């Protein structure tokens, strides 16, 4: 469902935070709306969402809360997405905010109260299919939330570095839909990240990727590392998962360079899986061919 191939919106707001340093939800919602409109070349978000979510479809927001409250998908961004969907006529009851375990969701502050939609861990929502789904080198049981409960997958990962896969932004977050992610971290996760994204059910349902860069991290991931986290105060939005990750990679690389850190390639963890994913036809991995649409304060 890559309806805007090769396009990524990079949206930042230098005034996203208030005097207290906290993200201001109205500005974040506004930033999201601008990004969605820009991506869809739509006059309003309702028009954008009508191309992503068909009437009556159940929507799953796959978040990333491995790193706990300090570096997970933020409840503010999820709430903004839920509200935006609601404006477009998708009721909160048709939306599930989802990750591997209820415990992790709760620890990240992703509750129904905070997000405006139901939050469920795979562990409490039917677990995994018993049959194995295969894609390339990957063979895994898939979360039933993905296979049975939702028709549209919106992937909301975090803009961050990853110790093994290079970065964990959108596609790497899809490891959360398989039961055995620990088996797929060799060789800087290549081809495994691409293989997971190429699972037929993922490919069919993944409609939109959003990278939460309100707080981003250029080194020391996937856990929170305060020394390497920075207030990027932005988001990336796209339907092309490869292009979005490639742009996110560039943002992280720039930050690493500015901080005197070796490049991901020098650190021997350049995400080779981007090129693999592109070879599967999942999206555009060549940055020169990606159309980056800058919104607000840009990339």
């Amino acid at each position, binding site marked *: 469902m890559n309806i805007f191939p090769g396009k990524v919106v990079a949206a930042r707001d230098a005034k996203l935070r208030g005097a207290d340093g906290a993200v201001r939800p109205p500005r974040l919602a506004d930033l999201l709306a601008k990004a969605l409109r820009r991506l869809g070349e739509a006059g309003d978000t309702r028009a954008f969402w009508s191309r992503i979510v068909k009437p009556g479809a159940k929507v799953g927001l796959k978040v990333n809360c491995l790193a706990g409250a300090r570096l997970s998908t933020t409840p503010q961004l999820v709430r903004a997405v839920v509200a935006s969907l609601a404006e477009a006529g998708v009721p909160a009851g048709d939306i599930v905010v989802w990750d591997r375990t209820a415990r992790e969701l709760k620890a990240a502050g992703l509750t129904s109260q905070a997000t405006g939609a139901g939050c469920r861990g795979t*562990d409490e929502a039917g677990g995994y*299919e018993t049959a194995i789904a295969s894609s390339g080198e990957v063979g895994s049981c898939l979360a039933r939330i993905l296979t049975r409960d939702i028709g549209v997958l919106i992937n909301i990962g975090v803009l961050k570095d*990853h110790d093994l896969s290079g970065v964990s932004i959108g596609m790497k977050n899809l490891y959360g839909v398989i039961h055995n992610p620990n088996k797929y971290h060799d060789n800087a996760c290549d081809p495994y990240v691409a293989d997971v994204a190429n699972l037929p059910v993922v490919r069919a349902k993944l409609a939109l990727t959003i990278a939460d860069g309100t707080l981003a991290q250029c080194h020391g991931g996937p856990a929170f590392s305060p020394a390497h986290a920075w207030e990027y105060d932005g988001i990336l939005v796209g339907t092309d998962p490869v292009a979005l990750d490639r742009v996110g990679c560039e943002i992280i690389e720039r930050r690493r360079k500015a901080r005197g850190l070796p490049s991901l390639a020098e650190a021997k963890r350049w995400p080779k899986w981007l090129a693999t994913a592109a070879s599967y036809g999942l999206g555009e991995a060549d940055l020169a061919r990606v159309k980056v649409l800058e919104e607000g304060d840009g990339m």
Partner: protein
Amino acid sequence: MACERRSFLKAAAAAGLAAAAAPCRGAGQAAEEASEFPVKPARHFVALPEKRVRCELCPRKCEVADRERGYCGVRENRGGDYTTLVWGRACSLNIDPIEKKPLFHFLPGATALSVATAGCNMECKFCQNWEISQFRPEQIAASFMPPARLAELAAARGAPAIAYTYSEPVVFFEYMYDAAVAGNARKIKSVMISNGYILEPALAELCDVLAAVKIDLKGFTEKFYKEYTKGELAPVLAALKYVAKRRVWLEIVVLLIPSLNDGAAELTEMCAWIAGELGPDTPLHFSRYHPMYKLKNIPPTPLQSLERAHAVAKKAGLNYVYLGNVAGHEAESTYCPQCGKAVITRYGYRVDARALTDGKCAGCGAPVPGVWE
């Protein structure tokens, strides 16, 4: 496999182990909250910069970042402290015949309290227990069964042994070690049923407390190990040699898979290696494969293939060669290499060891190696 697991859990309940064996709800079903189980410090790792660790339990030597787990899925880095998530977290528990392990030269006819946790450090495409070995602990039902309780249960059920089995006990090293110590204090022996994919320092500690080890030798080429197990052959061979050197009782199982690891040349080389490096008295079991997990396109091993392998092993000079998963076959029994008498006859799990007296053949008096009491 799921049915098999359910059946032994039922059997556990029937044997009075209901408190120990929660009904397994199968892969992917809601599991107990992690908080019900203790998280214990892992052993055999080294700390690295930036809160990373390198696990040195198995040859994989996973380098694990904070908040991540190793390949096995049961050892987790928590802020630079490496931990095991499966200490006492038993997902399978049953009373089994020791022959089911299989161990044929170890307390014949005895039972073993058999325990497993989630996790494995390989991923065999033909895994017969993948619904526990290839899942993470929080994904499958489990009950808290601390080491002392295991030993207590074994004693209460008249089982002279605890078997660490079904999944891969190497990955629950700390639990296994502590349980073996607890068992030894009650004169309950411990046996490890393993893939042998473990580094020597950890294996050395285990050999101090285990009475027997059965290792699955999954093939005899690196290519097979790499393609079908995601492991390596050389470290397994090193582990076999180490166990043999330590004089912990050792038996070997080879799951014969048609066209993949049953070539005459490969088997000949394997059997010669076993005879030469481990000794001709090392029991070798050739077991019949059934399509399972990710290898379902190959039919079960024909009996003729098993019998061919048996002949190769005998020709290589191995004295004790068995066929598994073929109930009623004469190669289930133990024969005296000196006079040919059947000293232990078996039919499935039915065992008659009356022709073995004090570890010697009742016919000619030749000693038969093993642990007989």
